[in-house]
């Protein structure tokens, strides 16, 4: 059998065709077989757009490899198209010369019309150069299940497993993990266990019989660090990271939230985990969600709120209040395409300015960003740690790409890697003669966290300007100025408790590539490729955005050129240029899609050659 270093497969079909499930099965099986993987679910904003239309196409891309994989792949090697709309919507994501597996049962005149094809695209000029495998996926599934006591509709629903079976044959996947999953999933409906397994095997066997069309490949296991692994997506990682932070801090976890794509799965996940002392509150709106979290923070919980850009806009006033109160709070923004409602299910990094500047008055917040699905657990913990140790709201930026994308995660050593978090809790009555001031500060300018229920610490907090120390309302002009400085300085002081910035490559050279947040997979791979070719390129990927680690300026100034890559029109570029007077250029993209490694590679080449 031929060996492949890596392969990218894209499953696509109607929203109801089960493509997300098919993709997940393929990636789970590959992970269990030792490949490195990355996945990218790409689904429409509409829940069930009319069948057969472009708007209803749901896709799932998987990249598996025998070596390091960090992105779901620039282009697909294989496209599974369950209908003509899926073909039309995804053709430009398929590599020139790639393979198309088309479910020709769905390639009907009626379906051509629905997605705007004049006639059958299979065999048309447009597909010249691609390898097309025409398979009767629906009718063959029905045929395989003809003896089953099920209606035709239920039988047809198993067609995704037929398609999965074909791809399993093509890439030498074991059937066992999926069969295990089916047995578990349909334990209460045994007929569905058998039906899906029969469809899966029928698909595999069919692929085996058309051997001149399909040459099976093998993708050997990747060499990865030893340990116990699981698959994780970013939203689950965030949810679990907060559970860990609450445990490390000895607090209960409180989430006040309102459903919004693509952040809702964090609410779903935490709502399940009540036995970790987790309280989830689905509020009547975004504002009530954050306000309840601030109330819970005053009450002594590790309080968080989760949302996406439009929801964060609504939370702005309350974020300013939490900053003014100096209470710990984490605000998660799983960014999506904006502005306004924008592209709800697509990814973008265009809420960076909103995170930095989206509130009235002088109201800086600590901002951190997760870099990959398997980094979300750590960064949620970090966001919570900083909020609790600095007594201020922290924004955690994620995005639709890492929130839904999955990759293997080597399970951490929780005791060693996630130590106790020392909170500022002041929950005992003051000693005789001890004076309590709500806004008394320590060396880092952090106040203590006195919570209701503690005798002798009764005090009032509010959004009106406070007098230094006492926290009483004050309209004094110089006090206000001093307080603005103190609150800003306090946020700046977080540099004392965040790690120094690391780089990939040399500390000086021709080109420094800067990226932040969810683009790490692509920038890392593109920089690595350049370095392998001996080019003087270094990557600085930022995760602590405000304040930035102390050594960032020194790194930035060690290179002839700086190129800042981000999925917006240049927000981090503007921030870094303003802060460090750099004159750096940007490489930007706002298509609702992640970076491709190839486009970054080209951009770096161009930047190096630029006079």
């Amino acid at each position: 059998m031929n060996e492949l270093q890596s392969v990218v497969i894209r499953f696509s079909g109607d929203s109801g065709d089960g493509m997300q499930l098919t993709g997940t099965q393929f990636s789970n099986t590959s992970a269990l077989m030792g490949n490195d993987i990355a996945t990218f679910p790409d689904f429409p904003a509409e829940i069930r757009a009319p069948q057969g239309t472009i708007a209803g196409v749901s896709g799932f891309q998987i990249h598996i490899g025998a070596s390091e994989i960090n992105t779901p792949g620039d282009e697909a090697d294989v496209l599974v198209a369950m209908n003509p709309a899926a073909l039309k919507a995804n053709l430009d994501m398929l590599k020139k010369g790639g393979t198309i597996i088309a479910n020709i049962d769905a390639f009907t005149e009626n379906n051509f019309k629905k997605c705007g094809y004049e006639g059958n695209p299979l065999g048309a000029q447009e597909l010249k150069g691609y390898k097309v495998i025409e398979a009767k996926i629906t009718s063959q599934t029905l045929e395989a299940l003809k003896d089953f006591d099920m209606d035709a509709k239920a039988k047809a629903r198993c067609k995704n497993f037929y398609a999965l079976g074909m791809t399993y044959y093509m890439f030498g996947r074991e059937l066992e993990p999926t069969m295990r999953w089916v047995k578990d999933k349909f334990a209460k409906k045994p007929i569905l266990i058998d039906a899906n397994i029969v469809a899966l095997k029928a698909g595999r066997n069919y692929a085996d019989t058309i051997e001149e069309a399909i040459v099976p490949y093998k993708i050997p296991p990747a060499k990865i660090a030893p340990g116990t692994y699981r698959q994780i997506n970013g939203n689950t990682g965030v949810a679990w990271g907060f559970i860990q932070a609450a445990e490390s801090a000895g607090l209960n976890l409180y989430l006040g939230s309102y459903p919004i794509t693509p952040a809702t799965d964090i609410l779903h996940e935490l709502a399940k985990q009540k036995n970790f002392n987790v309280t989830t509150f689905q509020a009547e709106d975004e504002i009530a969600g954050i306000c309840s979290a601030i109330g819970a923070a005053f009450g002594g919980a590790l309080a968080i709120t989760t949302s996406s850009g439009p929801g964060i806009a609504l939370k702005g006033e309350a974020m300013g209040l939490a900053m003014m109160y100096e209470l710990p709070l984490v605000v998660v923004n799983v960014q999506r395409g904006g502005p306004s409602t924008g592209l709800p299910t697509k990814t973008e990094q265009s809420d960076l300015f909103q995170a930095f500047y989206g509130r009235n008055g002088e109201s800086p917040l600590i901002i951190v960003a997760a870099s990959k699905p398997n980094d979300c657990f750590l960064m949620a913990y970090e966001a919570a740690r900083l909020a609790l140790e600095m007594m201020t709201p922290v924004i955690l930026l994620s995005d639709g790409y890492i929130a839904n994308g999955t990759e293997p995660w080597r399970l951490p050593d929780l005791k060693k890697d996630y130590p106790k978090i020392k909170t500022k809790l002041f929950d005992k009555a003051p000693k005789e003669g001890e004076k309590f001031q709500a806004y008394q500060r320590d060396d880092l300018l952090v106040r203590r966290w006195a919570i209701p229920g503690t005798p002798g610490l009764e005090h009032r907090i509010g959004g009106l300007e406070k007098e230094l120390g006492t926290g009483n309302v004050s309209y004094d002009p110089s006090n206000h100025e001093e307080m603005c400085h103190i609150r800003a300085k306090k946020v700046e002081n977080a540099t004392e408790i965040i790690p120094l910035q690391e780089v990939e490559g040399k500390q000086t050279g021709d080109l420094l590539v800067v990226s932040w947040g969810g683009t790490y997979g692509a920038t890392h791979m593109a920089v690595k490729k350049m370095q392998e070719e001996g080019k003087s390129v270094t990557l600085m990927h930022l995760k602590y955005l405000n304040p930035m680690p102390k050594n960032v300026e020194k790194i930035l100034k060690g290179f002839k050129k700086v190129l800042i890559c981000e999925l917006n029109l240049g927000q981090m570029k503007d921030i870094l240029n303003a802060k460090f007077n750099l004159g750096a250029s940007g490489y930007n993209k706002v298509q609702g899609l992640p970076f491709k490694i190839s486009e970054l590679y080209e951009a770096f080449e161009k930047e190096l050659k630029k006079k």
Partner: protein
Amino acid sequence: MTEMPTYKKKDFVSDQEVKWCPGCGDYAILSSVQLAMTKIGKEKKDIVFVSGIGCSSRFPYYMDTYGMHTIHGRAPGFATGLKLANPNLEVWLVTGDGDGLSIGGNHLIHILRRNVNVNIILFNNEIYGLTKGQYSPTSEPGLITKSSPYGSIDRSFSIASLAIGAGSTFFAKTIDTDPKHMMEVFQAASEHNGTSMIEVYQNCLIFNDKIHDAYTNRMKRDDTTLRLKHGEPMIFGKEKNKGIHWGGDKPEVVTIGENKISESDLMVHDEKDIFKAHMYSAFHHPEFPVPLGVLRKVERPVYEEGVIHQINQVTEKKGKGDISKLLKSGETWEVK
């Protein structure tokens, strides 16, 4: 068990200077609340006053308890989160007709619907005071203000109808000119397990003076208000000779001794009767006396108790969460 400290009113007076306009109705409410706090059997350390924005919302600064002055209209969210974090707290929410019904209308109906054990005092002066006099959601149509120089076109809310419609389990009305009545109502609210909503007719002497005069003025109020007491006939009037009688298809005001009406012909107040609750909320001056006291009080499951119950139930069933097990849930694999 530690003994409950005994408090005097001054124990609840904070060191902050009260900055409402001299003669404002808010002073009387503050004083009654401070007095009520000495009688509710709660320790100071466990009492929290939460407010939004507006004149009334300065209230927490003047109470020597825990307090949160929050943002405009959103106090119910803060109060809900606080109760969920620590259900043992005695949480009071102070709001006004602008804060609670206009910008915060959404949050108010939802806290009532959920029945969080919070006591809400809504100061209704039918005007925006802190922004210097604009019509509010409770202003009568036609009110001339700076933002309605030719008279307001807006129709006004009946707070009672709104609250009862939203599922309020405790709704009471009182007036800023009757400290004793206010205190009784506040105590009753504290005793109720669930959201207690109290509307206080409060006078803004700068921007809407005497707007409630017909039913709060000591000289007139006995004839224009009806003091509701559960299980007792609905009698009112200086001479205690007027009452509410069911006229066959609607309620009517009658005089005892006239038309063969005696006390036993009058309707009896029932705070558990939803139909009567809706009826009282349609009692408007001058056709009817303004009902004061507890209009509605029923027991219903309390939100935070339900949330905690569910957490305990799940914990009992699944066992206390273990993060290392959680991380290994689903499929894992070993790389050697």
